[in-house]
């Protein structure tokens, strides 16, 4: 081990020394060198190391670990032991705890992590979709039955004139709105940030045994149904469908998945089964959060479709085509069987 670093001044052969002194004299240079390397990685990343340092890092780390073991058994110098503990901990996390690079994580996420995470949530996704549907149906029937209920369901700021008191022409105008052209991109960005925040929120709220997430998802469906009912009452159902579907397939799907991720966490904490609650929570949480991150990506696309696509594409047929193509695309991406999975499973 002494060969790792050239030894400094020899040990003075004077009187009896405490073990720590002998030990420090023999290994201090190695520790200092490891300290220097780890500090450089912490400050400027692994790229800051020379090839030689990179090769030495694991050797020096193991040597420091063995120093720590020896020091604990033979030395009573507490400063030495705590120094070595801190040094070894820092080195350990630089060697074992560092994630792969951001770009390879991103690649892994797109190729495998995301669809896998969504597929693992299929039960919750189904429940979430059914809740949205039930909410939408309830909202639709309620507002058809009693238009004043619309005001109870949807806040004024969101309605933007699309309420039961508007006449058919005014409603039609909101569907094929062209005036907003100059603010399109801002509008798209606002929609994205707003929706993405809701997706993250519904995921996090899942922790409270999924109850708030259920409410959020049902309410989302309720608003959807209420909006459609306003247009359907004026005979504009098909047109409103086109207005909604161009981005809705992506956006509502994303919200459903984020809700599903919240359900997964809530149910994992409420019913951990035989596993310990904390162990199960994170095994589930890590995977569900990947699905939620995917939902945020979907919402970026939905925001673009809503803010730009919808305002420039004014033909119902094209709107339906785009919306349904997106839906088929997402379903294929998430649920189509893959060769890579087959290999991984077998």
């Amino acid at each position, binding site marked *: 081990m002494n060969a790792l670093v050239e030894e400094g001044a020899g040990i*003075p052969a*004077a*009187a009896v*020394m*405490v073990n*720590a*002194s002998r030990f420090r004299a023999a290994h201090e240079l190695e*520790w*200092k060198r490891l300290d220097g390397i780890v500090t450089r*990685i912490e400050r400027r*990343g692994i790229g800051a190391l020379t090839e030689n340092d990179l090769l030495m890092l694991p050797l020096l780390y193991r040597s420091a*670990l063995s120093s*720590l*073991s020896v020091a604990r*058994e*033979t*030395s*009573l*110098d507490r*400063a*030495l032991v*705590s*120094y070595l*503990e*801190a*040094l*070894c*901990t*820092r080195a*350990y*996390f630089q060697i*074992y*705890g*560092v*994630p792969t690079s951001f770009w390879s*994580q991103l690649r892994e996420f797109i190729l495998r992590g995301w669809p896998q995470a969504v597929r693992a949530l299929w039960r919750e996704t189904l429940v979430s979709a059914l809740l949205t549907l039930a909410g939408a149906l309830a909202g639709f029937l309620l507002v058809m039955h009693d238009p004043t209920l619309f005001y109870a369901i949807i806040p004024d700021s969101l309605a933007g004139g699309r309420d039961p008191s508007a006449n058919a022409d005014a409603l039609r105008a909101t569907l094929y709105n062209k005036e907003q052209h*100059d*603010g399109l*991109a*801002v509008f798209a*960005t*606002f929609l994205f*940030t707003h929706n*993405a*925040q809701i997706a993250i*929120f519904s*995921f*996090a709220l899942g*922790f409270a045994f999924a109850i708030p997430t259920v409410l959020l998802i049902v309410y989302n469906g309720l608003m959807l149904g209420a909006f459609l009912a306003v247009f359907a009452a004026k005979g504009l159902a098909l047109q409103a469908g086109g207005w909604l579907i161009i981005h809705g397939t992506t956006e509502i799907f994303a919200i459903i998945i984020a809700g599903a991720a919240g359900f997964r966490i809530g149910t994992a904490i409420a019913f951990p089964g*035989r596993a310990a609650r*904390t162990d199960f*929570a*994170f095994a589930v*949480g*890590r*995977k*569900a*959060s*990947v699905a*939620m991150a995917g939902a945020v990506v979907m919402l970026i696309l939905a925001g673009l479709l809503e803010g730009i696509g919808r305002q420039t594409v004014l033909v119902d047929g094209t709107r339906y085509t785009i919306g349904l193509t997106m839906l088929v695309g997402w379903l294929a991406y998430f649920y189509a069987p893959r060769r890579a999975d087959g290999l991984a499973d077998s």
Partner: protein
Amino acid sequence: MVWPIRRRAPAAPRTLRRSFVTPEGVDLRLELGGAGARAVAFVLDAVMILTILILSTIAISLLVSDGKSEILLILWLIGSFVLRNGWFILFEIGGRGATPGKMLIGLRVVARDGAPLTGGAVIARNAMREIEIFLPLSFLGYQASQDAADAFLAIFALLWSGIFLFFPLMNHDRLRIGDLVGGTWVVRTARTALAADIGATETIARQRRSFSDAALDLYGVYELQTLEEVLRLARPEAIATVAEAVRRKAGIADDGDDMGFLTDYYRALCVRLERGMMLGRRRDNKHAPSLGRQR
């Protein structure tokens, strides 16, 4: 384990040291970040985020009059979204495993199982901030904006969400909800310097005091390490008090050099106790049987 019957979990340790065995088989005895350090790191991050947000808002509102308002507005919207959600995630996903606030305090997020920190874990632990921080904040804001009739409801909601905020104080590992869901914990990785060696370095030439076995049998490891701390801190009044106590117990006359006396005593005691350890006899404190009698 059958469901209704749960074995009682072993009593959690009081300190923040946790056993953590590396693949090489050495226990690193990780030191977890305390609640105070964690809170300070968060406040630092929050201050940085708010400062950036406020400065960029001022800058953009000054520039908006130039007619390029649309792009700037988009930048602002995306920027504030990324700041709120991305600050923690992007910094922790990088190799450092720490936000600037944590780096300043000397903290690091690591996976509890010692594996590399995955993106999923970081996203999970930080998405939970929504219910830990922003939910209580929004209830506070709600209460501020409403009249007294709703105050009761708001306070109730605040209490409920306060459970999430103060969750770290309710468990031994100082886990946030986010740590629970992400499978992470926060450890101290502050850089420490190797303190000087009390033992051998100085004054080899100086004649050392020698002590009788009886004088060295007074104390054990615990007292030795306390003495080490006193010597390292080197506060004159503490040195004088300790030197006086040791002299009185050992029946040694005062020679006027407290520091030298204690250093020599420390060295002699250390050598004796270490020799005992080599032979498998460890004397933990002064109440344990002396090394001579353990045979």
